[in-house]
Each structure stands twice: as C-alpha cells, then as structure tokens.
C-alpha cells in the first residue's frame, strides 16, 4: 500500500466524523509517512510500519467527545435506511413503557454513583470532626488544669490528641479514596466511549 492509498482508506473510515478531525488526522499521518521516508524508509515500508488502519481509526474515534460518538453512531445506523412507519408508531405508543424503564435504569445507575459519593462525603465528615476534637481537648485540658485536677486534664488532652491523630490517618486515606473515585469515573467514561467505537466496527 502506498501513501495515497493509505490516506484515502483512513479518510474513508473516518468519513462520518467531524471534518476538522478527519483533516487533522490525515495531515498527521501523511506527515508521519513523509518523515519516515526522509529518514530512509521506502514508501511501502513506512506505510506498513504505521500499523493497521482499523486500529488507527479506532484510536482517533475513542478520543472524540461522547456526544459526537453517539450522534455519529445513530447516523451510521440509520444511514441509507428508512425507518418503517410501524416502528415509529410502536416507539411512540410504547414510550410510556420503554421510556419509564429506561429512566428507571438510568436513575438506578445514577443513584448508585451518588451513593458512592455519599459514603465518601460521610467519611470526610468523620475525618473533619476527629480533627476538630483537638479543640475541646485543649479547652478541657486548660480548664481542668486551672481547677487543679491534673488527672482529668491529661485525659482531655490525650483523647483530643488521639482523635486528631486518627483524623490525620483518615485524612490521608480519604484523599486516596476520593482520588480513586475520580479516576474510576474517568475510566468508566472512557470505557463507555470505547464500547461505542468497538460496536461500530462490527
């Protein structure tokens, strides 16, 4: 395969996607082939070393925003095909059924996600209250010391410090957990996009 064939094929694979994206990709891969040839490779060799076109196209698609992917996917599915009237009729009439079912599923997934954050926030609250325990601890310590009960004073100080210590540990842990949840969210988002791209290829 030579450079022009490669670029035409890639353009064809990305034809349904935003024009700017396609143009930028074609320019990039064209330049890559030129640079390789300048580096001493034969044209065919340079093209072959880029890898499979399908894979390259997939990589480009996964990076597009989710909304663009969904839009392009529905466009691809209905391309050249007219939806029969009875299907539209069925979809409209059935909306109270499938609409509410879909809503229920989405609501369930969202509430599950919200629950994860709720637990996270709850633990943060515990963490902050533990850290705040140092204040009553100190107040109690000085108050008891002032009244002459040294024993109680140190109990106050000790428990205040112990709580704050636990709070610090929890703080370190919670930072990691919260970061993890954020990363997980990003991962899920990427997986959804990936599955959309994969399905298109089939």
């Amino acid at each position, binding site marked *: 395969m030579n450079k022009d064939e490669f670029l035409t094929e890639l353009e064809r694979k990305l034809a349904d996607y935003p024009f700017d994206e396609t143009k930028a990709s074609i320019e990039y891969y064209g330049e*890559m082939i030129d640079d390789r040839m300048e580096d001493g490779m034969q044209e065919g060799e340079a093209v072959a070393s880029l*890898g499979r076109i399908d894979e*390259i196209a997939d990589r480009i698609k996964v990076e597009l925003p989710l909304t663009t992917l969904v839009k392009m996917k529905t466009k691809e599915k209905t391309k050249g095909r007219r939806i029969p009237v009875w299907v539209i009729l069925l979809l409209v009439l059935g909306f109270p059924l499938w609409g509410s079912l879909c809503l229920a599923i989405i609501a369930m997934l969202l509430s599950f996600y919200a629950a994860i954050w709720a637990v996270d926030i709850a633990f943060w609250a515990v963490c902050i209250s533990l850290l705040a325990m140092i204040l009553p601890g100190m107040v109690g310590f000085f108050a008891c010391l002032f009244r002459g009960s040294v024993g109680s004073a140190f109990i106050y100080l000790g428990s205040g410090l112990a709580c704050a210590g636990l709070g610090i540990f929890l703080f370190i842990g919670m930072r990691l957990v919260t970061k993890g949840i954020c990363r997980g969210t990003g991962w899920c988002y990427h997986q959804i996009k990936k599955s959309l791209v994969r399905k298109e290829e089939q």
Partner: protein
Amino acid sequence: MDIQLKRGILDICVLSALLKEDSYGYKIMKDLQSYVEISESTLYPILRRLEASSALKVYSAEHNGRLRKYYAITPEGRERIREFLEEWKGVQIMYEYIKKEMKEDE
C-alpha cells in the same frame, strides 16, 4: 501497567520532549522511544488532547518543500509537568517502601 495511569504519564512524557525545543510528531516519537514504547497512533490522540487543553500550541512551518506541524509547550504545559513531579513524590515514597519490604521478605 494500568491504562489510565499510563495515559497520564505519557502526556507528561510528550510535554517533556518539548521542553528543550519545539518539535514535530516523528521526532517526538523517536526521542521518546528509548524511554517508553510509543507509536504514531498512540502519540496522535495525546497531541490532540494536549492541544485541546492548551498545554501545547501547534504551528506549521515549511520543511523540504512541504508543511510540517510543529508543537510548542505553553506555560500551562510546564505547569502540568511541575504538578506531575510534585504529585509523584508521594508515589516514589510508596515505591521505595514497597521495594524495601519486598527485599526484606525475600
């Protein structure tokens, strides 16, 4: 390695390759090759992403009678590298700890 993690680090590697001078796709790839496995199809989305988040700027310049795209790092890009180094101090400490414990175990 965890894909999400690798993605983040690769972004920083690409930005670092632009610290000394502006560079172009093929050269970035060659410069990075001795440190990390990276192909054109991996590099391309990274460059697009970095451009979109204004961590780098793209401009075209003539080279051997054709236009070539050059990439330049922006102040935002430098800031991203700094943040990365700061964040990874913690990871390094954990790494040393794990290595030490493992050594004692063997």
